[in-house]
Protein backbone atom coordinates (compact mmCIF):
# COMPACT_ATOMS: atom_id res chain seq x y z
CA UNK A 1 0.00 0.00 0.00
CA UNK A 2 1.32 3.39 -0.87
CA UNK A 3 0.30 4.68 2.55
CA UNK A 4 2.49 2.14 4.29
CA UNK A 5 5.49 4.02 5.52
CA UNK A 6 7.37 0.83 6.12
CA UNK A 7 7.57 0.30 2.38
CA UNK A 8 10.52 1.70 0.55
CA UNK A 9 11.07 2.28 -3.13
CA UNK A 10 12.62 -0.83 -4.56
CA UNK A 11 16.20 -0.64 -5.60
CA UNK A 12 17.45 -4.17 -5.78
CA UNK A 13 21.18 -4.63 -5.66
CA UNK A 14 21.07 -6.40 -9.01
CA UNK A 15 23.71 -8.78 -10.28
CA UNK A 16 23.84 -12.46 -9.54
CA UNK A 17 24.00 -12.19 -5.75
CA UNK A 18 21.09 -13.79 -3.96
CA UNK A 19 19.99 -12.03 -0.79
CA UNK A 20 18.89 -14.47 1.90
CA UNK A 21 17.13 -13.07 4.93
CA UNK A 22 16.06 -14.44 8.27
CA UNK A 23 13.93 -13.48 11.19
CA UNK A 24 15.47 -12.45 14.45
CA UNK A 25 14.69 -15.97 15.57
CA UNK A 26 17.38 -18.55 16.02
CA UNK A 27 15.51 -21.42 14.37
CA UNK A 28 14.63 -19.36 11.34
CA UNK A 29 18.25 -18.32 11.07
CA UNK A 30 19.36 -21.95 10.96
CA UNK A 31 17.00 -22.64 8.06
CA UNK A 32 18.18 -19.52 6.27
CA UNK A 33 21.76 -20.63 6.78
CA UNK A 34 20.90 -24.03 5.32
CA UNK A 35 19.37 -22.35 2.26
CA UNK A 36 22.42 -20.16 1.92
CA UNK A 37 24.96 -22.92 2.14
CA UNK A 38 22.99 -25.08 -0.27
CA UNK A 39 22.81 -22.22 -2.76
CA UNK A 40 26.49 -21.51 -2.39
CA UNK A 41 27.26 -25.18 -3.00
CA UNK A 42 25.22 -24.81 -6.18
CA UNK A 43 27.46 -21.99 -7.37
CA UNK A 44 25.45 -18.96 -6.29
CA UNK A 45 26.76 -16.00 -4.38
CA UNK A 46 24.78 -15.31 -1.24
CA UNK A 47 24.38 -12.14 0.76
CA UNK A 48 23.16 -13.06 4.24
CA UNK A 49 20.90 -10.53 5.92
CA UNK A 50 19.96 -12.42 9.00
CA UNK A 51 18.26 -11.51 12.26
CA UNK A 52 16.26 -8.71 10.71
CA UNK A 53 13.53 -8.53 13.27
CA UNK A 54 9.94 -9.57 13.23
CA UNK A 55 7.67 -10.00 10.28
CA UNK A 56 6.39 -6.43 10.43
CA UNK A 57 9.92 -5.24 9.85
CA UNK A 58 11.06 -7.49 7.05
CA UNK A 59 7.84 -8.10 5.15
CA UNK A 60 7.94 -4.72 3.40
CA UNK A 61 11.49 -5.47 2.31
CA UNK A 62 10.44 -8.80 0.85
CA UNK A 63 7.51 -7.20 -0.88
CA UNK A 64 9.85 -4.58 -2.24
CA UNK A 65 12.08 -7.29 -3.66
CA UNK A 66 15.05 -6.39 -1.54
CA UNK A 67 15.31 -9.92 -0.20
CA UNK A 68 15.33 -12.89 -2.56
CA UNK A 69 14.93 -15.86 -0.26
CA UNK A 70 13.29 -15.93 3.13
CA UNK A 71 12.32 -18.98 5.23
CA UNK A 72 8.71 -18.60 6.20
CA UNK A 73 5.90 -20.49 7.84
CA UNK A 74 2.80 -21.06 5.72
CA UNK A 75 0.01 -20.28 8.18
CA UNK A 76 1.63 -17.31 9.90
CA UNK A 77 2.62 -15.70 6.63
CA UNK A 78 -0.83 -16.25 5.22
CA UNK A 79 -2.42 -14.55 8.20
CA UNK A 80 -0.01 -11.67 7.94
CA UNK A 81 -0.89 -11.17 4.29
CA UNK A 82 -4.60 -11.74 4.59
CA UNK A 83 -6.37 -11.13 7.87
CA UNK A 84 -9.45 -12.93 6.59
CA UNK A 85 -7.68 -16.17 5.58
CA UNK A 86 -9.47 -19.41 6.38
CA UNK A 87 -6.57 -21.85 6.61
CA UNK A 88 -7.38 -25.51 7.13
CA UNK A 89 -5.09 -28.42 6.32
CA UNK A 90 -1.47 -28.01 5.54
CA UNK A 91 -2.03 -28.29 1.82
CA UNK A 92 -5.05 -26.01 1.82
CA UNK A 93 -3.10 -23.37 3.69
CA UNK A 94 -0.20 -23.70 1.26
CA UNK A 95 -2.58 -23.25 -1.68
CA UNK A 96 -4.27 -20.27 -0.10
CA UNK A 97 -0.88 -18.70 0.61
CA UNK A 98 0.13 -19.01 -3.03
CA UNK A 99 -2.84 -16.89 -4.10
CA UNK A 100 -2.40 -14.41 -1.26
CA UNK A 101 1.17 -13.56 -2.21
CA UNK A 102 1.85 -10.41 -4.25
CA UNK A 103 2.44 -10.98 -7.94
CA UNK A 104 6.19 -10.90 -8.03
CA UNK A 105 6.64 -13.21 -5.06
CA UNK A 106 6.14 -16.94 -4.87
CA UNK A 107 6.67 -19.80 -2.48
CA UNK A 108 8.60 -22.90 -3.43
CA UNK A 109 7.73 -26.39 -2.15
CA UNK A 110 6.83 -26.54 1.51
CA UNK A 111 8.79 -28.83 3.80
CA UNK A 112 7.37 -31.51 5.98
CA UNK A 113 8.94 -29.71 8.92
CA UNK A 114 6.61 -27.33 10.65
CA UNK A 115 6.99 -24.98 13.54
CA UNK A 116 3.51 -24.00 14.48
CA UNK A 117 1.74 -22.54 17.43
CA UNK A 118 0.48 -24.94 20.05
CA UNK A 119 -1.18 -24.85 23.42
CA UNK A 120 1.30 -26.46 25.73
CA UNK A 121 1.15 -27.55 29.38
CA UNK A 122 3.52 -29.37 31.69
CA UNK A 123 3.38 -33.14 31.76
CA UNK A 124 2.33 -33.07 35.41
CA UNK A 125 -0.49 -30.72 34.65
CA UNK A 126 -1.54 -32.87 31.70
CA UNK A 127 -1.67 -36.03 33.71
CA UNK A 128 -3.35 -34.36 36.66
CA UNK A 129 -6.30 -33.29 34.54
CA UNK A 130 -5.97 -35.99 31.90
CA UNK A 131 -5.28 -33.57 29.10
CA UNK A 132 -4.73 -34.68 25.51
CA UNK A 133 -6.28 -32.17 23.18
CA UNK A 134 -7.24 -28.53 23.51
CA UNK A 135 -10.89 -29.28 24.24
CA UNK A 136 -9.94 -31.37 27.26
CA UNK A 137 -8.81 -28.20 29.02
CA UNK A 138 -12.37 -27.98 30.27
CA UNK A 139 -11.34 -30.67 32.77
CA UNK A 140 -9.15 -28.21 34.60
CA UNK A 141 -10.62 -27.02 37.86
CA UNK A 142 -7.94 -24.54 38.92
CA UNK A 143 -7.61 -21.07 37.33
CA UNK A 144 -5.66 -21.09 34.10
CA UNK A 145 -3.29 -18.25 33.36
CA UNK A 146 -2.15 -18.04 29.77
CA UNK A 147 1.27 -16.81 28.63
CA UNK A 148 2.64 -15.78 25.27
CA UNK A 149 3.48 -12.83 23.05
CA UNK A 150 1.31 -9.75 23.28
CA UNK A 151 -0.48 -10.39 20.05
CA UNK A 152 -1.70 -13.75 21.29
CA UNK A 153 -4.33 -12.10 23.41
CA UNK A 154 -6.23 -10.90 20.36
CA UNK A 155 -5.43 -13.73 17.96
CA UNK A 156 -8.29 -15.92 16.69
CA UNK A 157 -6.79 -18.88 18.57
CA UNK A 158 -6.08 -16.85 21.68
CA UNK A 159 -7.61 -16.97 25.15
CA UNK A 160 -10.86 -15.53 23.88
CA UNK A 161 -11.22 -18.29 21.31
CA UNK A 162 -10.57 -20.89 24.01
CA UNK A 163 -13.39 -19.42 26.02
CA UNK A 164 -15.84 -18.95 23.19
CA UNK A 165 -15.13 -22.08 21.23
CA UNK A 166 -14.50 -24.62 23.97
CA UNK A 167 -15.93 -22.98 27.08
CA UNK A 168 -12.56 -23.09 28.81
CA UNK A 169 -12.37 -20.54 31.58
CA UNK A 170 -9.20 -18.45 31.45
CA UNK A 171 -8.15 -16.58 34.58
CA UNK A 172 -5.69 -14.20 33.00
CA UNK A 173 -3.16 -13.43 30.33
CA UNK A 174 0.54 -12.71 30.90
CA UNK A 175 2.55 -11.32 28.01
CA UNK A 176 6.01 -12.80 27.67
CA UNK A 177 7.59 -11.33 24.61
CA UNK A 178 9.98 -14.14 23.77
CA UNK A 179 7.77 -16.05 21.34
CA UNK A 180 7.45 -19.10 23.51
CA UNK A 181 11.12 -19.02 24.41
CA UNK A 182 12.95 -19.95 27.57
CA UNK A 183 11.17 -17.41 29.72
CA UNK A 184 7.75 -18.69 28.73
CA UNK A 185 8.90 -22.22 29.39
CA UNK A 186 10.31 -21.22 32.74
CA UNK A 187 7.07 -19.51 33.66
CA UNK A 188 5.22 -22.70 32.75
CA UNK A 189 7.55 -24.93 34.70
CA UNK A 190 7.54 -22.57 37.68
CA UNK A 191 3.74 -22.60 37.62
CA UNK A 192 3.46 -18.84 37.02
CA UNK A 193 1.34 -19.76 34.00
CA UNK A 194 -0.47 -22.98 33.24
CA UNK A 195 -0.96 -22.76 29.52
CA UNK A 196 1.53 -21.41 27.03
CA UNK A 197 1.80 -20.83 23.33
CA UNK A 198 4.99 -22.61 22.34
CA UNK A 199 6.21 -23.53 18.86
CA UNK A 200 6.05 -27.19 18.16
CA UNK A 201 9.63 -27.43 16.95
CA UNK A 202 10.93 -26.04 20.20
CA UNK A 203 13.28 -28.57 21.79
CA UNK A 204 12.21 -27.26 25.16
CA UNK A 205 9.05 -29.27 24.86
CA UNK A 206 11.14 -32.38 25.06
CA UNK A 207 13.79 -31.12 27.40
CA UNK A 208 11.34 -29.78 29.94
CA UNK A 209 8.89 -32.58 29.63
CA UNK A 210 6.05 -30.49 28.23
CA UNK A 211 2.98 -31.60 26.40
CA UNK A 212 1.73 -29.83 23.29
CA UNK A 213 -2.02 -30.43 23.25
CA UNK A 214 -3.24 -31.79 19.97
CA UNK A 215 -5.36 -29.61 17.77
CA UNK A 216 -7.88 -31.80 15.96
CA UNK A 217 -10.12 -28.87 15.07
CA UNK A 218 -7.40 -26.88 13.32
CA UNK A 219 -7.57 -24.00 15.73
CA UNK A 220 -4.05 -23.10 14.68
CA UNK A 221 -3.02 -22.67 11.09
CA UNK A 222 -0.45 -25.23 10.04
CA UNK A 223 2.98 -23.64 9.81
CA UNK A 224 5.10 -25.64 7.44
CA UNK A 225 8.50 -24.24 6.60
CA UNK A 226 8.54 -22.74 3.14
CA UNK A 227 10.93 -20.45 1.26
CA UNK A 228 9.41 -17.23 -0.05
CA UNK A 229 11.37 -16.17 -3.12
CA UNK A 230 11.60 -13.27 -5.49
CA UNK A 231 11.73 -13.26 -9.30
CA UNK A 232 15.47 -13.52 -9.12
CA UNK A 233 15.33 -17.15 -8.12
CA UNK A 234 15.68 -19.14 -11.33
CA UNK A 235 14.85 -22.78 -11.84
CA UNK A 236 18.25 -24.08 -10.83
CA UNK A 237 18.18 -22.16 -7.57
CA UNK A 238 14.60 -23.22 -6.96
CA UNK A 239 15.59 -26.83 -7.51
CA UNK A 240 18.26 -26.58 -4.86
CA UNK A 241 15.84 -25.10 -2.33
CA UNK A 242 13.18 -27.67 -3.12
CA UNK A 243 15.68 -30.42 -2.46
CA UNK A 244 16.40 -28.92 0.92
CA UNK A 245 12.72 -28.69 1.75
CA UNK A 246 12.22 -32.30 0.78
CA UNK A 247 14.85 -33.38 3.29
CA UNK A 248 13.61 -31.15 6.09
CA UNK A 249 11.34 -33.29 8.26
CA UNK A 250 9.58 -32.35 11.47
CA UNK A 251 12.03 -34.26 13.65
CA UNK A 252 14.93 -32.78 11.79
CA UNK A 253 13.86 -29.26 12.69
CA UNK A 254 13.47 -30.11 16.38
CA UNK A 255 16.90 -31.68 16.30
CA UNK A 256 18.47 -28.68 14.62
CA UNK A 257 16.87 -26.38 17.19
CA UNK A 258 18.14 -28.57 20.01
CA UNK A 259 21.67 -28.27 18.67
CA UNK A 260 21.32 -24.53 18.85
CA UNK A 261 19.71 -24.34 22.26
CA UNK A 262 21.18 -27.22 24.13
CA UNK A 263 24.57 -27.54 22.49
CA UNK A 264 24.82 -23.80 21.86
CA UNK A 265 26.22 -24.35 18.39
CA UNK A 266 26.17 -21.54 15.88
CA UNK A 267 23.80 -21.62 12.91
CA UNK A 268 26.48 -22.12 10.26
CA UNK A 269 27.98 -25.12 12.06
CA UNK A 270 24.59 -26.71 12.50
CA UNK A 271 23.72 -26.09 8.84
CA UNK A 272 26.98 -27.47 7.48
CA UNK A 273 26.73 -30.60 9.61
CA UNK A 274 23.16 -31.30 8.55
CA UNK A 275 23.67 -30.56 4.84
CA UNK A 276 26.70 -32.82 4.81
CA UNK A 277 24.84 -35.60 6.55
CA UNK A 278 21.89 -35.23 4.19
CA UNK A 279 24.34 -35.28 1.29
CA UNK A 280 23.04 -31.99 -0.02
CA UNK A 281 26.51 -30.45 -0.25
Amino acid sequence: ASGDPLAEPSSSAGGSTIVVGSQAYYSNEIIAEIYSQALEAGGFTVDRQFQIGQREVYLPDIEAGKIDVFPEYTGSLLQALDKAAVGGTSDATYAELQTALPDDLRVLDQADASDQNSWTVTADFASKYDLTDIASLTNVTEPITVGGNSELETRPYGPTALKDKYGISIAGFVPVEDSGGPLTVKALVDGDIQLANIYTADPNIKTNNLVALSDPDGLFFPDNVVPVVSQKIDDSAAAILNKVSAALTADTLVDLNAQSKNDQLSADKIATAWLTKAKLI
Partner: protein
Amino acid sequence: MTWIWSNLDLIWDRTFDHLILSVPSIILSFLIALPFGWLAHRYRASRAVILTTVGVLYAIPSLPLFIVLPFIVGTSIRSPLNLIIALTLYGVALMVRVVADGLGSVDRDVQQSATAVGFSGWTSFWQVELPLAGPVLLAGLRVVAVSTVSLATVGAVIGAQSLGSLFTDGFQRGIQAEIIAGILATVLLALALDAVLVLIGRLLMPWTRRSAIGVVARPGAVARQEVTT
Protein backbone atom coordinates in the same frame (compact mmCIF):
# COMPACT_ATOMS: atom_id res chain seq x y z
CA MET B 1 31.25 -19.37 29.21
CA THR B 2 32.61 -21.66 26.51
CA TRP B 3 30.07 -19.98 24.25
CA ILE B 4 32.10 -16.78 24.39
CA TRP B 5 35.32 -18.44 23.30
CA SER B 6 33.73 -20.28 20.41
CA ASN B 7 31.89 -17.19 19.20
CA LEU B 8 34.53 -14.47 19.41
CA ASP B 9 34.08 -13.82 15.70
CA LEU B 10 30.41 -13.14 16.17
CA ILE B 11 31.04 -10.85 19.14
CA TRP B 12 33.61 -8.96 17.16
CA ASP B 13 31.25 -8.57 14.19
CA ARG B 14 28.48 -7.25 16.44
CA THR B 15 30.91 -4.89 18.14
CA PHE B 16 31.82 -3.52 14.76
CA ASP B 17 28.12 -3.12 13.83
CA HIS B 18 27.66 -1.37 17.14
CA LEU B 19 30.43 1.07 16.43
CA ILE B 20 28.93 1.89 13.04
CA LEU B 21 25.71 2.83 14.81
CA SER B 22 27.05 4.69 17.80
CA VAL B 23 30.12 6.62 16.69
CA PRO B 24 28.37 8.64 13.96
CA SER B 25 25.52 9.33 16.37
CA ILE B 26 27.89 10.66 19.01
CA ILE B 27 29.70 12.92 16.58
CA LEU B 28 26.50 14.14 14.96
CA SER B 29 24.83 14.93 18.24
CA PHE B 30 27.80 17.03 19.27
CA LEU B 31 27.83 18.96 16.02
CA ILE B 32 24.09 19.54 16.01
CA ALA B 33 23.97 20.49 19.69
CA LEU B 34 26.58 23.21 19.25
CA PRO B 35 24.43 25.79 17.45
CA PHE B 36 21.34 25.03 19.53
CA GLY B 37 23.31 25.16 22.76
CA TRP B 38 24.83 28.42 21.66
CA LEU B 39 21.40 29.83 20.92
CA ALA B 40 20.10 28.74 24.30
CA HIS B 41 23.13 30.28 25.96
CA ARG B 42 23.08 33.49 24.02
CA TYR B 43 19.41 34.40 24.02
CA ARG B 44 17.40 34.17 27.22
CA ALA B 45 14.14 33.92 25.32
CA SER B 46 15.21 30.97 23.21
CA ARG B 47 16.65 29.21 26.20
CA ALA B 48 13.36 28.17 27.72
CA VAL B 49 11.94 27.02 24.40
CA ILE B 50 14.98 25.05 23.38
CA LEU B 51 15.60 23.42 26.71
CA THR B 52 11.95 22.45 27.13
CA THR B 53 11.80 20.90 23.68
CA VAL B 54 14.94 19.02 24.41
CA GLY B 55 13.49 17.87 27.70
CA VAL B 56 10.44 16.40 25.99
CA LEU B 57 12.61 14.69 23.40
CA TYR B 58 14.33 13.10 26.30
CA ALA B 59 11.17 11.52 27.63
CA ILE B 60 10.29 9.64 24.45
CA PRO B 61 10.72 5.91 24.96
CA SER B 62 13.24 4.67 22.46
CA LEU B 63 11.35 1.67 21.06
CA PRO B 64 8.45 3.63 19.56
CA LEU B 65 10.85 6.30 18.40
CA PHE B 66 12.80 3.74 16.43
CA ILE B 67 9.61 2.56 14.80
CA VAL B 68 7.95 5.91 14.21
CA LEU B 69 11.00 7.70 12.91
CA PRO B 70 10.88 6.11 9.44
CA PHE B 71 7.31 7.45 9.12
CA ILE B 72 8.66 10.92 9.63
CA VAL B 73 12.00 10.95 7.85
CA GLY B 74 11.21 8.37 5.22
CA THR B 75 14.01 5.93 5.84
CA SER B 76 13.57 2.18 5.88
CA ILE B 77 12.79 0.89 9.32
CA ARG B 78 15.65 -1.56 8.97
CA SER B 79 18.15 1.00 7.76
CA PRO B 80 20.98 1.76 10.18
CA LEU B 81 20.38 5.39 9.27
CA ASN B 82 17.06 5.25 11.06
CA LEU B 83 18.74 4.13 14.23
CA ILE B 84 21.55 6.64 13.88
CA ILE B 85 19.03 9.44 13.58
CA ALA B 86 17.19 8.27 16.68
CA LEU B 87 20.39 7.93 18.70
CA THR B 88 21.50 11.32 17.48
CA LEU B 89 18.26 12.83 18.69
CA TYR B 90 18.82 11.49 22.18
CA GLY B 91 22.41 12.67 22.08
CA VAL B 92 21.32 16.13 21.02
CA ALA B 93 18.72 16.17 23.80
CA LEU B 94 21.51 15.66 26.30
CA MET B 95 24.17 17.74 24.68
CA VAL B 96 22.26 20.97 23.99
CA ARG B 97 21.98 21.61 27.70
CA VAL B 98 25.60 20.80 28.24
CA VAL B 99 26.68 23.20 25.51
CA ALA B 100 24.53 25.97 26.97
CA ASP B 101 25.89 25.34 30.45
CA GLY B 102 29.42 24.96 29.18
CA LEU B 103 29.37 28.28 27.40
CA GLY B 104 27.75 29.77 30.48
CA SER B 105 30.53 28.45 32.66
CA VAL B 106 33.20 30.46 30.88
CA ASP B 107 34.63 33.02 33.26
CA ARG B 108 33.14 36.40 32.42
CA ASP B 109 36.36 38.13 33.33
CA VAL B 110 38.23 36.14 30.73
CA GLN B 111 35.61 36.90 28.11
CA GLN B 112 35.66 40.58 28.96
CA SER B 113 39.41 40.69 28.80
CA ALA B 114 39.36 38.96 25.42
CA THR B 115 36.99 41.64 24.17
CA ALA B 116 39.12 44.32 25.75
CA VAL B 117 42.30 43.28 24.00
CA GLY B 118 40.49 43.23 20.69
CA PHE B 119 38.98 39.83 19.96
CA SER B 120 36.01 40.27 17.67
CA GLY B 121 32.81 38.33 18.46
CA TRP B 122 33.41 35.45 16.09
CA THR B 123 37.10 35.04 16.89
CA SER B 124 36.30 35.21 20.55
CA PHE B 125 33.75 32.40 20.22
CA TRP B 126 36.11 30.02 18.48
CA GLN B 127 39.32 30.95 20.22
CA VAL B 128 38.12 31.74 23.71
CA GLU B 129 34.62 30.64 24.65
CA LEU B 130 34.52 27.28 22.91
CA PRO B 131 37.91 26.06 24.12
CA LEU B 132 37.18 27.26 27.63
CA ALA B 133 33.84 25.48 27.64
CA GLY B 134 35.86 22.44 26.59
CA PRO B 135 36.01 20.64 29.94
CA VAL B 136 32.25 20.88 30.39
CA LEU B 137 31.61 19.87 26.80
CA LEU B 138 33.91 16.92 27.20
CA ALA B 139 32.16 15.82 30.36
CA GLY B 140 28.82 15.97 28.56
CA LEU B 141 30.14 14.22 25.50
CA ARG B 142 31.38 11.40 27.66
CA VAL B 143 27.92 10.89 29.07
CA VAL B 144 26.48 11.00 25.57
CA ALA B 145 28.99 8.44 24.37
CA VAL B 146 28.28 6.01 27.16
CA SER B 147 24.51 6.30 26.89
CA THR B 148 24.52 6.09 23.13
CA VAL B 149 26.49 2.87 23.21
CA SER B 150 24.13 1.50 25.80
CA LEU B 151 21.05 2.67 23.97
CA ALA B 152 22.14 1.32 20.59
CA THR B 153 21.50 -2.21 21.84
CA VAL B 154 17.78 -1.54 21.64
CA GLY B 155 18.07 -1.54 17.88
CA ALA B 156 18.23 -5.32 18.02
CA VAL B 157 14.56 -5.45 18.86
CA ILE B 158 13.74 -3.98 15.48
CA GLY B 159 16.39 -5.92 13.65
CA ALA B 160 19.31 -3.53 13.52
CA GLN B 161 22.38 -5.65 14.15
CA SER B 162 24.37 -4.61 17.16
CA LEU B 163 25.66 -6.04 20.39
CA GLY B 164 22.00 -6.02 21.37
CA SER B 165 21.46 -8.90 18.94
CA LEU B 166 23.34 -11.02 21.45
CA PHE B 167 20.62 -10.29 23.99
CA THR B 168 17.69 -11.20 21.77
CA ASP B 169 19.41 -14.27 20.38
CA GLY B 170 20.75 -15.41 23.73
CA PHE B 171 17.35 -14.82 25.24
CA GLN B 172 15.55 -17.00 22.69
CA ARG B 173 18.10 -19.75 22.90
CA GLY B 174 18.43 -19.52 26.66
CA ILE B 175 22.18 -18.99 26.48
CA GLN B 176 23.07 -16.80 29.43
CA ALA B 177 26.70 -16.59 28.38
CA GLU B 178 25.62 -14.89 25.19
CA ILE B 179 23.67 -12.24 27.09
CA ILE B 180 26.51 -11.73 29.54
CA ALA B 181 28.94 -11.44 26.66
CA GLY B 182 26.67 -8.81 25.13
CA ILE B 183 26.50 -6.81 28.34
CA LEU B 184 30.24 -7.02 28.93
CA ALA B 185 31.05 -6.09 25.37
CA THR B 186 28.68 -3.11 25.56
CA VAL B 187 30.17 -1.86 28.82
CA LEU B 188 33.72 -2.34 27.59
CA LEU B 189 32.96 -0.61 24.32
CA ALA B 190 31.41 2.29 26.21
CA LEU B 191 34.37 2.58 28.52
CA ALA B 192 36.77 2.33 25.59
CA LEU B 193 35.03 5.17 23.75
CA ASP B 194 35.03 7.10 27.00
CA ALA B 195 38.77 6.58 27.33
CA VAL B 196 39.27 7.75 23.78
CA LEU B 197 37.33 10.91 24.54
CA VAL B 198 39.39 11.55 27.65
CA LEU B 199 42.52 11.11 25.58
CA ILE B 200 41.28 13.49 22.92
CA GLY B 201 40.43 15.94 25.68
CA ARG B 202 43.94 15.70 27.05
CA LEU B 203 45.40 16.38 23.66
CA LEU B 204 43.11 19.28 22.84
CA MET B 205 43.06 20.86 26.29
CA PRO B 206 46.57 20.61 27.64
CA TRP B 207 45.94 23.45 30.05
CA THR B 208 43.53 21.36 32.11
CA ARG B 209 46.14 18.71 32.72
CA ARG B 210 48.48 20.54 35.00
CA SER B 211 46.77 22.19 37.87
CA ALA B 212 47.79 25.38 39.50
CA ILE B 213 50.69 25.56 41.89
CA GLY B 214 49.00 24.85 45.15
CA VAL B 215 45.45 25.67 44.24
CA VAL B 216 43.06 23.33 42.61
CA ALA B 217 42.01 25.53 39.77
CA ARG B 218 38.33 24.76 39.45
CA PRO B 219 37.00 22.14 41.80
CA GLY B 220 33.62 22.40 40.16
CA ALA B 221 34.83 21.48 36.74
CA VAL B 222 36.89 18.66 38.09
CA ALA B 223 34.02 17.21 40.08
CA ARG B 224 31.78 17.62 37.12
CA GLN B 225 34.12 15.72 34.91
CA GLU B 226 34.47 12.94 37.36
CA VAL B 227 30.76 12.52 37.73
CA THR B 228 30.78 11.10 34.32
CA THR B 229 33.83 8.89 34.42
